[in-house]
């Protein structure tokens, strides 16, 4: 039994199934992060000072030191999004070597992002700024933590498409190209979330 429109486009909607699927998934993700961001707005507007002062004072000074790291991470993620598109273009040009190179770069960028994040986290925790310290720290760890989980999920998918999943290229090249497009849409979304997280957590304090 074959499910129709797995690869080819349906004429009246102009979509293949998984492309609509991923857009719906992204819509739900927008609502998830929408809920998280609205919590940020509500807690921040209700706070007398921001970031709040807790047991170890305010995070504000420590935060200034981490802005360069976060800026570096922003650049890295944007770069990974660019190489993600390039990987898709390479498949459209039927150039598997280029595809592997670009997708590999995306994965490496994502890993670098996580390493930088790890140092940021451990520095803050070392100074006593744990999630329970104040509502800013709670939001910081929850929002960036969930975003980090999305990065990890992305890495797993992309690594599969870079490694074992590539066998589909020989049997169904078009379907494989669609998979990269769909994975790319997700990756751009994860990138976009960071573009919002970066100013609200690091710059606007």
């Amino acid at each position: 039994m074959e499910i129709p429109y797995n690869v080819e486009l349906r004429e009246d909607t102009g979509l293949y199934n998984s492309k609509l699927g991923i857009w719906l998934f992204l819509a739900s993700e927008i609502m998830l992060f929408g809920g998280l961001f609205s919590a940020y707005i509500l807690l921040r507007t209700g706070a007398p000072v921001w970031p709040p002062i807790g047991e170890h004072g305010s995070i504000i000074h420590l935060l200034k030191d981490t802005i360069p790291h976060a800026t570096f991470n922003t650049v890295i993620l944007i770069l990974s999004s660019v190489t993600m598109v390039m990987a898709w273009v390479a498949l459209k040009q039927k150039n598997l070597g280029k595809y592997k190179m670009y997708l590999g770069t995306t994965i490496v960028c994502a890993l670098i992002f996580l390493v930088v994040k790890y140092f940021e986290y451990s520095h803050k925790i070392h100074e006593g700024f744990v999630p329970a310290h104040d509502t800013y720290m709670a939001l910081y760890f929850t929002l960036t933590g969930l975003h980090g989980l999305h990065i990890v999920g992305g890495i797993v998918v992309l690594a599969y498409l870079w490694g074992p999943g590539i066998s589909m290229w020989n049997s169904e090249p078009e379907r494989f190209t669609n998979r990269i497009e769909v994975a790319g849409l997700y990756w751009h979304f994860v990138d976009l979330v960071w573009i919002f997280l970066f100013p609200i957590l690091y710059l606007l304090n």
Partner: protein
Amino acid sequence: MSDSHHEESFWRKYIFSTDHKVIGIQYGITALLFLFLGFSLMMVMRWQLAYPDTAVPIVGSLVKWLADLNGFASDGNLPADLYNVFGAMHGTIMIFLGVVPIIVGAFGNYLVPLQIGAPDMAFPKLNMASYWVYFVGGVVMLVSFFLPGGAANSGWTAYPPLSDIATTGQTYWLIGMVFLITSSLLGSMNIIVTIVQLRAEGMTWMRLPFFVWSQLVTSFLLVLAFPPLEAAGIFQLMDRVFGTSFFLPSGLVIGGEILKVSGGGSPLLWQHLFWFLAHPEVYVLILPGMGILAEVIANNTRKPIWGYKSLVYSATFLGFMSFLVWAHHMFLTGMGQGMSVFFQTTTMIISVPSVIILTCFMLSLWGGSIRFTTPMLFALGWMPMFGIGGLTGLPLGLSTPDIHLHDTYYVIGHFHYVVAPGTIFAIFAGIYYWFPKMTGKMLNETLGKVHFYFSFIFMNGLFWPMLIQGLGGVSRRLSDGGASYAHAQEFLHWNVVMSYSAWLLAVAQIPFIYNLIKTLLADKSPNPDPNPWNATTVEWTDTTSPPLGHGNFEKTPVVHRGPYEYSVPGESTDFTPQTQN
């Protein structure tokens, strides 16, 4: 088509199946068991409400065993702490593990591909995953009953700060909810893609059966409304596990001491995020029910459903508006008059499409030659009951009368009229109606009618007194049913009436269960009629004798007309199939 599947192992065919029909039945069976569990919890609670602090008959030793396990003192009675657990879990199980899985997971899964002429759901593996994620969520919820302190006990709404400091059961509840939310998201995306992409040739939007429309709107609600609750659940998990203060205000005093947390959080934040899901959730519960009703009513009145387009536009508008009414649950939180005015206005607006839908159904009866089959009886019973549920909601949606009615039994009566005789009657109608499609056997009509009439009587006996008690000011969530409150004294005798109604309602389900088992065990005729109700939609007219193989159709259907062409003048039969040229 079924030839290639002879080699499938039992596990592949019935347990880890990717066939939407098998998954639908898996959802159905699991959800019916959960509905039974949720109902059983309520029956024990009803003993405590009618005869406070006396030993529960029949299951008293079981209650004592569970209370001992949880660390509550019990002599076979239902202690207040365990009453709180049962109350919270009754709501959670009924809504998230019972009704939504059966009405979207079972009916949606089974019928949507069949009604639009598709071979399966768009993503069969994802479909299987969504069932198993639901299953895990259910297991997590069940396991939490055996923890010290019991399962979640902060109500199904899990309001902080109470839920933030509750026993471990609440953490399990949150983890279970994350699974259930994920399952709903996967399932509803699948349904939307299936409807948009896999409609058969000629199945245009305005030729979709109304049931498919209702599933489409419902799925959009699930995709867009559940994630904010997931966000809220994650915050509450952070509060409970990592000691953050998302929902804990500064200077919170518990047991005479200031709680040692950073503070700065907002309990209202939870309520906003929770009701942003939970109000659309109400429409998730009722819309697919309305979809089932449209099919049953058109078929049994032998005439087109009245106002098909009005139904479609109303359902769509209802879905849209349901995102703009959530704070009418929060009039008494002191969120301000401006907010209250806005939300009471949107609440009045949203009642309009609901009334249009109910009116369309009632007008559909006009001039029809009605067949009083069991599914039709449930549909006819649904109309006044849903009407009561809807009308009793109006005073709650206005901020002034809500001051008196908020958190009373009136609220309980109102939403049970919507969900119990509303949605559950629609579910029964659907089970009786599509059972021959699933199994090739008709359920016994006499037993079905006994089931209907007694359910109808006892549901009213159970829920109507709640409205009376609530108007008298009896609060909900009292483990003694109001016995220790002076103003509740003259309403206490209703507790006994309601409790007996509840237990008799359980007795009224015996013909149904017996009917199911007896019919399932009975021999199947060698070639059952694929269309016993003489219906017009594709799932009846273009399939072979049930049970259907994986892939549904031998020949892909081509649709030529709308879904409800009954009694078309000049035709030889009183039903004209959608696929007839």
